[in-house]
């Protein structure tokens, strides 16, 4: 078990006042809240901060934690010295911001699981006997949204074992990905959440769909975007161009005088569904390099024979 430096996690001095600790917590909680933050480790950081605050906001726990001494470094292997908490009383009641189930072994070895039994988390409160719902994200490939498919996902969830200890259980589920899913949409798996209390049914598992980045396509809702490189002569003269789409290569007509970046919409070629999305092709005119005599000659010829000033609107 690693020693955790709660002051460092909170970014405050050991001499910080309770008020400073509270303010630091509020700030960090907003910054790392998983619903707000886009950082990948936000959830982890949020839990860490919640745990640090749980230890430091209560003057008794904080004093006991301080008592552990100055010599511990974060990450160092830690076992609480015997009687370290002698003379401290943890009543453990009252409002707590964190979800006690998320606290680390380090926290539990110091303050025990009961120390935060007063958790005000909605899930634990009250009369409800149905199991807790679980939420998870699953990343799929764009192709899965077109063809449908199945994904094997591994979930970790804390559960109570026979002796009443919390263990992290891993389970693997095979889930069917229906055709036509879009970014952010959810799949509900009935009865795959936490077991219910008594005879009550288990909670549900909600899977939120996300897409792995694709090598050539970008996804927005039901719509798909593709950058299509074209030559200057294809753009100027018009052409029929072989274009990839998620359902296979097509011949795309490019109009005479096509401009870079002007979207071409291919109706209903996006993600399928009751209202299928569209595929947007964005032509990008690319210049052939002038790296051979022939190419240089051609560019020079254009320079001499085409009276073209792209800067005429700039007045020069």
């Amino acid at each position, binding site marked *: 078990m690693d020693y955790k430096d709660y002051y460092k996690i909170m970014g405050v001095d050991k001499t910080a006042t309770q008020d400073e600790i509270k303010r630091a917590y509020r700030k960090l909680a907003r910054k790392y809240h998983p619903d*707000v933050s886009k950082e990948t480790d936000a959830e982890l950081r949020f839990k860490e901060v919640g745990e640090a605050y749980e230890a430091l906001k209560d003057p008794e726990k904080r004093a006991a934690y301080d008592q552990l001494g100055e010599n511990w470094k974060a990450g160092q292997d830690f076992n609480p010295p015997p009687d370290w908490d002698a003379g401290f009383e943890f009543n453990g009641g009252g409002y707590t911001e964190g979800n006690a189930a998320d606290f680390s072994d380090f926290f539990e070895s110091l303050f025990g699981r009961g120390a935060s039994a007063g958790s005000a988390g909605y899930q634990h409160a009250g009369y409800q006997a149905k199991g807790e719902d679980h939420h998870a994200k699953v990343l799929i490939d764009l192709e899965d949204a077109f063809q449908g498919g199945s994904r094997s996902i591994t979930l970790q969830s804390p559960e109570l074992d026979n002796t009443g200890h919390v263990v992290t259980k891993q389970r693997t589920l095979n889930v069917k990905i229906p055709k036509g899913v879009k970014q952010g949409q959810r799949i509900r798996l009935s009865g795959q959440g936490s077991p219910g209390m008594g005879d009550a049914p288990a909670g549900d598992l909600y899977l939120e769909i996300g897409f792995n980045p694709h090598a050539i396509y970008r996804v927005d809702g039901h719509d798909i975007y593709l950058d299509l490189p074209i030559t200057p002569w294809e753009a100027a003269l018009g052409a029929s161009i072989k274009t990839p789409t998620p359902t296979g290569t097509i011949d795309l007509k490019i109009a005479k005088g096509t401009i870079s970046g002007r979207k071409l919409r291919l109706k209903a070629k996006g993600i399928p569904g*009751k209202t299928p999305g569209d595929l947007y092709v964005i032509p990008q005119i690319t210049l052939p390099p002038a790296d051979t005599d022939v190419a240089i000659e051609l560019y020079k010829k254009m320079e001499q024979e085409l009276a073209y000033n792209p800067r005429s609107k700039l007045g020069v």
Partner: protein
Amino acid sequence: MTQTTLNGILLDEHTELTLNDLCRACSTSAEWVIELVSEGVLEPVNYQQTQWRFTDVNMQKAQTAARLQRDLGINIAGIALALELLDEVETLQAQLNCLGLNDE
């Protein structure tokens, strides 16, 4: 290892949830949901009728709202504002993404 493939329900704009479903999913009270509706955060598909129905988008919003309130102590008006801004950020990020400008 043999494993059965689970068939879930795809939640979309056609999925309809009752007030009760929504309360249970957020572990909250009907009063709290009604407050979110009157703040304009949630919009039942049939606002005029007595038996409200909600889409999954509303449920996601309500769940986020519940987490924001629990974890950050934000009140309903603050939640409404935060959700609107989060929506806007998401839209802008999607637009950046479509322009190929997102370095993520």
